[in-house]
């Protein structure tokens, strides 16, 4: 339902980042989407098509990496992957509220084709990671 808003945010953000590479074409946009992000992949894919239509991002592929929930257990001093129905350490069965992964809603990277003659920065790595 809010995937359309999410898709619009991705379009805006990727367009902004791709502007650093004049004449480039975005081929692929890679996302990390946590199991607790409230985003439905199919719905986001559909909205991506709709949102990019008629924009420079039209035809770019959206690749979604699903991130499972990972919790930390104090007693076991261990991180474990769990489902979303019970926030318990799978080793000792204790409840744990210490979430280490699963809320991601992030653009990991983009794959772009750049014209050879254009001098572009070789590694523009922004480190604006949230969480």
């Amino acid at each position, binding site marked *: *339902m*809010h995937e359309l*808003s*999410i898709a619009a*945010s*991705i379009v*805006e*953000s*990727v367009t902004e*980042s791709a502007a650093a*590479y004049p004449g480039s074409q975005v*081929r692929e946009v890679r*996302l990390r989407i946590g199991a*607790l*992000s*409230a*985003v439905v992949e199919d719905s986001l894919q559909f909205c991506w098509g709709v949102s990019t239509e008629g924009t420079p991002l039209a035809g770019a592929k959206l690749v979604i990496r699903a991130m499972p929930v990972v919790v930390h257990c104090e007693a076991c001093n261990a991180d474990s992957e769990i489902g*979303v*129905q*019970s*926030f*318990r350490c799978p080793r000792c069965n204790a*409840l*744990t*509220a210490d*979430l280490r992964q699963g*809320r991601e*809603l*992030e*653009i*990991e*990277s*983009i*794959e*772009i*084709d*750049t*014209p*050879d003659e254009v001098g572009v920065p070789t590694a*523009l*790595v*922004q*480190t*604006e*990671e*949230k*969480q």
Partner: protein
Amino acid sequence: MTTRIVELRKGILKKNDELAALLRQRYEDAGVLVLNLVSSPGTGKTTFLERTLRELLARGARAAALVGDLETDNDARRLAASGAPVRQINTHGICHLDAEMIAKHLEGWDALGPNSDLAVLDYLFIENVGNLVCPSSYDLGERIRVALLSVTEGEDKPLKYPTLFNSADAAIITKIDLAAACDFNRDLAVKNINEIRPGIRIFEVSAKTGAGMDAWLNFLGETRSKTK
């Protein structure tokens, strides 16, 4: 052509998150406790909030509310009956509130005076659009996110909507005056909330009879004094 991969590592909702961080700072500076109320449509957010506002005013506190709704201002009018200042946010079809809508509606709100000064308030409640999915992605800068669930909805609601319940700081079980009529299994509901959000504060209330309201109001008072 050269194909290259550009690492971005950028939050999709970065703009919302940045604005929410500014709002959070603004709330803190003003000493106002801000709460974001989220539930399905029909859980009783408005009735619960109306009673909360009324009782806070009766205790001498200064409280106000922003209320999100798709199209109508019915909820704002109901809440205004409490005597507290209320402002409606119509999202026109958008299923959640975002930080920008909040920032926009804090400006030019007569309740805050000509300088939109939040320090005139002790409590600001934001009643989100009735929806248990989308609001969980959007930080509004609130200090406390409150997830509500009524006894008529079934004990397994937290399991069905883990994203929302897991992101909440407090949970309210509403309409407990109807619990017997619905064969509501209170222990199971509490257990399910705890499975999704271990250790969360849970309040069981009836806005109709007033049952459980004192514990909730005391929690608000304590939380606010910790804010200052």
